[in-house]
């Protein structure tokens, strides 16, 4: 059972979290100008790196999305931070 640090609630069991997406993905817009390839890449293709990774997770219990840096091999969590501003 991993412990993830919610920037708002502190360390909590992994069962309280959902993976949202890899960090740094920007939604391509406007729709009319986005190629099928680019849209497919945005929707379905993930880097899924082995080792250090930056991801957006949701702490379901408090409803906040946040950024987390962790290692997909060792499962070590380097840290987390709120998206778009300081924790409040």
């Amino acid at each position, binding site marked *: 059972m991993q412990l993830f640090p919610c920037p708002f609630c502190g360390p909590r069991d992994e069962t309280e979290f959902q993976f949202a997406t890899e960090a740094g993905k920007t939604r391509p*817009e406007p729709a009319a100008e986005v190629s099928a390839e680019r849209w497919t890449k945005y929707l379905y293709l993930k880097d899924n790196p082995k080792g250090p990774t930056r991801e957006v997770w*949701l702490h379901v219990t408090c409803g906040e999305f946040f950024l987390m840096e962790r290692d997909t091999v060792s499962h070590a969590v380097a840290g987390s931070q709120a998206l778009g501003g300081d924790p409040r």
Partner: protein
Amino acid sequence: MTARRISAGGARPIPFTFDGKSFSGIQGDTIASALLANGVRVVGRSFKYHRPRGIVGSGAEEPNAVVDVTLAGKTTPNVRATTEPLADGMAVRSVNAAPTAEADRAGFLDRFAAFIPAGFYYKTFLWPDWHLFEPRIRAMAGLGRLDPAHQPPADSPSINLRCDVLVVGAGAAGLAAARSAARAGGRVMLVDDQDAPGGSLGHRPAVIDGMPGGVWAEAVVTELRAAGHTVLSRATAFGLYDHGLVAVWQRRTGLPDALWQVRAKRIVVAAGAIERPLVFPDNDRPGVMSAEAALVYLRRHGVLAGERIVVATNNDKAYAVAVALHEAGAQVTVADTRPRGTLALRDGVEVIHQATIDGVSGARGVSSVTVSGRPIEADCVLTSGGFTPTVHLFCQAKGRLRFDEAIAGFIPGDPVAGMAVAGAANGAFAVSQVLAQGHAAGGGAGEPPRATTPDDTCAVAAAWPAPRGKARQWIDFQNDVAVKDVALAARENFRSVEHLKRYTTLGMATDQGKTSNMNGLAAMAAITGRTIAETGTTTYRPPFVPVPFTVVAGRRRGEFFNPVKRLALENQHRADGAVFREYGGWLRPGWYGTGQPATEIAREARQARATVGILDGSPLGKIEVIGPQAGAVVDYNSYQTLSTLKPGRIRYGFMLTESGVIYDDGVVSKLSDDHYVVSCSSGHVGGVVLRLEEWRQDRFDRSQVFVHNSTPQWATLTATGPRSRDLVAMLGLGVDLSDDALPHMSFADGSFAGGPARVSRVSFTGDRSYEIAVPTGTAKALHLAMMEAGRTLDAVLLGSEALLLLRAEKGYIIAGKDTDGTTMPHDLGIAGPRDKRAGEFVGKRSLFTENALRDDRQQGVGLTVAEGEPPLPTGAHAVETRGGARRSIGFVTSSYQSPVLGRPVALALIERGLSRLGETLDFVHLGTTRRATIAPVCAFDPEGARING
């Protein structure tokens, strides 16, 4: 003669049975010690060859003595006799044997052993199909039997605990560690799998801090408990999981077992070591057992393992066993594999040096043993091949092992952060060294404990199994793996220990090779000419011992597995005769009344169309979106534009996934420019809230809009049908109900019983309807008022089933039932927003992909059948035959008998369905074929006159 009790110490006798025969043990016995005390030698049959097997060990490592235990009429399978306390009236049964372990019908199998070596099944039962053979093979090889009558209650608690130091094992090392950790001021948890703390101090005498070892152990535990630390006995730390979570299975007296989930800043592993057998021909005879186990049975249970005992050893530690058994009255011969012993022995104990054990006679129990060519009469052979440190938790924490020649075993290599390993688990066997390691591992605070007895010598000279002659030398007793099987695996190139395990089953099953792995990999090393270090170990995975599923599942079973959501008015519905069913996670009235369900549902549906139906719609979502950017958020999350609504108005729409697929449908009420209420499907409330939150946080100014799920705070009661307005009028809500003031798809705020009441004109039946939302506190009063008002109007209580029927008559979809993971809005004929709406919204780009624009997509349609035919089965597939090949072109999603229309109605997703109106297709279901004609989705009141009727 065989084993017998030499001292009962006045303990209370406990009657029990084994394989139908009556025996008597004493208070404090395990099943194993009681069987030994009664001279029972054969306690089970081996897994594959059905060879008679006896008790080998005294703890979790036991490979043979696995039994089914019936107590108070309930049978628990596959219990280890060595760890299970004996209880009054226990009926113990051997496993994999019929009728008894002593006289097992399948015992003949062993004569064919030469023909069924390791890997036999893989090679032999391939053709024509393994499944032809599987049932009979499974019946012949197996362990305990499940008792279908025994469905244990979901009563095992799961307890979370955080501490500074978790110490696993309460032997000398663990006690020293726990004491120093406690003295350093941290919160300590000490867990131990034995009945009482002390570990080997319970059977190997030592004097520590001036006290006998057992007394010292008690004193340490008393000190820990007095200071508020947690000490558990009969508690096995069976696994270490991600981020250092340790799971502990605690057996409790008079209470259900408990699962502890422990997070500690530091973990001290002081789990001891397990003696491994020496491997020699026929070393599996009943009566061949671990030397250390014999000492445990003697010192803890007063049971002498035999009268004439040969102690076969490669180390000094077994000498103390020989002396103790000699002093207890047995005739003892020591067969030491080493050229010379390092210990002086008492008179009367013969020592044979450079001994080889050539064989053991006695199929049902040892009768003699041949040592270096000389037969010796014996009823018991004790073997000690050295001790294997219990490093499981260290390895589960990704620790790497190092082979230590001095102890002939693997010990922890480089330390793992946050973990220390001490005592025998770390390869230390002398008491003073054990105490010093434990004290240091616990932090080193306070005065270290000191042993005032001289240390036992622990020298060992490796004696690993090697191929020799024709007789079978057993390595894994539980899985019937002998040295020749390891040699066969090597010949067939299964040389990796992981392959060796899978190919021969060495180290598998309930004991996971606690006594056999080390010998198995050493044999493989010898056969392949590699060192033991090069050969390596298999991966250590939890659990350390088999843990009952009841303990792992805890209370999350039955109604707590996935608890239903409950209505505020559940009791009222019960009083009204509701039959409850689960709908989208909510427990709701399916129908009312005690008649046939179909009859009751038809009655409710017909009556609601004739007069007025009263329905509890409380689970429908009420998600408030509030703030200056509220309109932008709901627009972005919706297929239809919503912010253009006038305040007080309501609009129907879809919420899409980014893949353009319909996630949910529902209505949105606009209260003002900065306040909307999203009323989504009852089963999708959680998901819709998260979608709104995701975009609120990711795309919008999170200080300018908030999402609040107020569904649980409101109860919604709906009146639907031609007399619904009359009914609502009688409630005195203070709302103008005229169609000019409150047209369809609008709402008005009134009051009820001193609180707010929102009246919304939305309809899921196609008839004039009013949804009245009140705080749950006044729901009961509103329900009573509506029932009272309905009395004069011939109103009917409407369950969910009738509602589903009424909406199907109108062709109103249920998202996820009448749509699937491919359905887009235009597949239901709603393409306006796709074609006309400017700006971004969730899923937009996906509505224009090549796939989304195909003309052969499955589209939502209605179906009719020929007059007099029954409803189509839901799920029936529409098929098309082309060029002799039949394929599915869609399926029935909803199907009902309409009481009002007097005929079946159905909805379906059919390829090109919207351009196929009037076409008649074949529908197949479970071998039968029906015909149905494509029709518009709406079968009832297509003009929509009844919405204002």
